[in-house]
């Protein structure tokens, strides 16, 4: 049943997916907790014209993609540092422009039509040593930055107004996060492509978020889930001859939907029965006046 994993190119793809899971699992939690999901989609899409240029002019695809993605990250970082919160509309604008420029470049300048699908949706079964080296570097940087800067990212996200008083209002730390996300998006391009990068970067983290209450279990859980979804997607795509990037995205989306359904069912069950929920899927927010909050020793009970 699992003879797929006997093939060297599938083994290589598996190594790539597992490395990317390490990077996406740690960075994904920061993307979700800092509200950067749309940014991460934007930065991956922005890399597309860079890929087309690299493909057409014959230089390194990674270099082309990262060059454009870095430009995008610095622009958004600048705007964020100036305190113009809510850069969603700008992200949307750049996203559409990047895709359009990429398509025009591909169809009318370089005539690289056949490659466009690969660039947009990835080619996990054709990753090379350079892709794997990039994934190793990104995974190592993601883990290192989470270990060293995580406390700051968390404190700023929790209460931006207090950040300066707490001595954590350094734009550098936030810029490192934006650039790392850009780098991770570029690394995932080879596996799932520009349009499906969020399948690895955001969806597993958003799924595990529903069942965890602290950063560390959330991060560990996300790494495991992303690895499992990537492995399952790889195997299924081999068995069904479907494109691996899309298969991983469908599996990740399906599991997210299942967990969301289970969670809301558990919430409804508690509300109607007033009993503890299974699976640790309790809703995290208790309201002031809810009987639940009072029975837990809220102020009103004393």
């Amino acid at each position: 049943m699992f003879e797929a994993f006997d093939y060297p190119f599938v083994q290589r793809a598996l190594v790539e997916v597992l490395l990317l899971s390490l990077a996406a699992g740690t960075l994904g939690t920061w993307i979700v907790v800092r509200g950067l999901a749309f940014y991460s989609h934007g930065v991956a899409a922005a890399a597309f014209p860079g890929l087309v240029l690299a493909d057409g002019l014959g230089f390194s695809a990674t270099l082309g993609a990262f060059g454009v993605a870095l430009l995008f990250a610095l622009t958004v970082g600048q705007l964020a540092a100036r305190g113009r919160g809510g850069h969603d509309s700008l992200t949307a604008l750049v996203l559409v422009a990047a895709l359009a420029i990429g398509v025009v470049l591909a169809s009318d300048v370089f005539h690289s039509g056949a490659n466009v699908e690969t660039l947009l949706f990835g080619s996990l079964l054709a990753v090379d040593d350079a892709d794997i080296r990039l994934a190793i570097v990104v995974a190592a940087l993601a883990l290192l930055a989470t270990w060293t800067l995580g406390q700051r990212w968390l404190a700023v996200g929790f209460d931006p107004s207090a950040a300066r008083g707490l001595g954590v209002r350094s734009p550098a730390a936030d810029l490192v996060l934006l650039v790392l996300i850009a780098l991770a998006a570029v690394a995932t391009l080879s596996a799932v492509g520009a349009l499906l990068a969020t399948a690895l970067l955001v969806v597993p983290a958003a799924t595990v978020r529903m069942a965890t209450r602290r950063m560390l279990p959330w991060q560990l859980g996300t790494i495991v889930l992303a690895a499992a979804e990537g492995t399952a997607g790889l195997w299924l795509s081999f068995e069904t001859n479907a494109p691996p990037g899309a298969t991983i995205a469908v599996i990740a989306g399906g599991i997210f939907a299942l967990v969301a359904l289970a969670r809301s069912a558990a919430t409804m069950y508690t509300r109607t029965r007033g009993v503890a929920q299974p699976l640790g899927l309790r809703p995290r927010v208790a309201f002031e006046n809810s009987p639940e909050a009072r029975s837990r020793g809220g102020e009103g009970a004393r």
Partner: protein
Amino acid sequence: MSGLASAPLVRTDALAVGYGAAPVLSDVSFDLRAGERIGVLGPNGGGKTTLFRALLGELKPLGGALDLAARCGTVPQTERSRLDFPVSALDVALMGAIAGRPWWKHPGRAERRAAREALARVGLAELADRSFGELSGGQRQRVLVARALVQDARIVLLDEPFTGLDAVSIRRLEDLLDELAGEGRGVLIATHDVEQARAWDRVLCLNRRQVAFGPPAETLSLDVLAATYGGSIVTLPAVAGEGERLALLPPHHHDHEH
């Protein structure tokens, strides 16, 4: 103490603050001394939060002077997104210790002890590992006070900290603010409750500009309150157990629809 107390922790002179070119708050001239509790009064949109954002360094003054002798600790209003954050009360208190260590280091044993002690001081020792969003409103405010304690903030800003709290929580938080001031910290409290502010050392009345500043007994006249809130003031008859109280009527809206 008197030598320290003579130098104000905060001093502003004709301070103007705003989000664009036009100030939304101007002519603010007040000072906060060590050991003092100042109530910041004003209507919604009167500039209380804007003043705090200037003190926190989020907004640059458009005019006038702003001198801070120390960095501010803050107890902000509760935002929905914060309730959903994956942190415990201890994690939040520990955020106060970040500035005190090199950027690559994790909180050590001493910092964890300091954070637990701060939580114990605000009466939350046994809830240290509870999720922040699961705590009651009063408990959350006290966790944020604990964060300011770990930070050892000499200036503490509280933005409408009593909103939505029950009487027990209000009393508890008031006692805590008295303690902070007793230790020589300067405390600025934005509030809607004029009667509550009478117990503090001075009041700062804002309505897009500074209306008045001084000890509450001298400052909180009917004229000042009317100018601050822009409405009419009526005296409510005494009810059981309480004396006369002032109440504000909303400003009249003159509709000219025919």
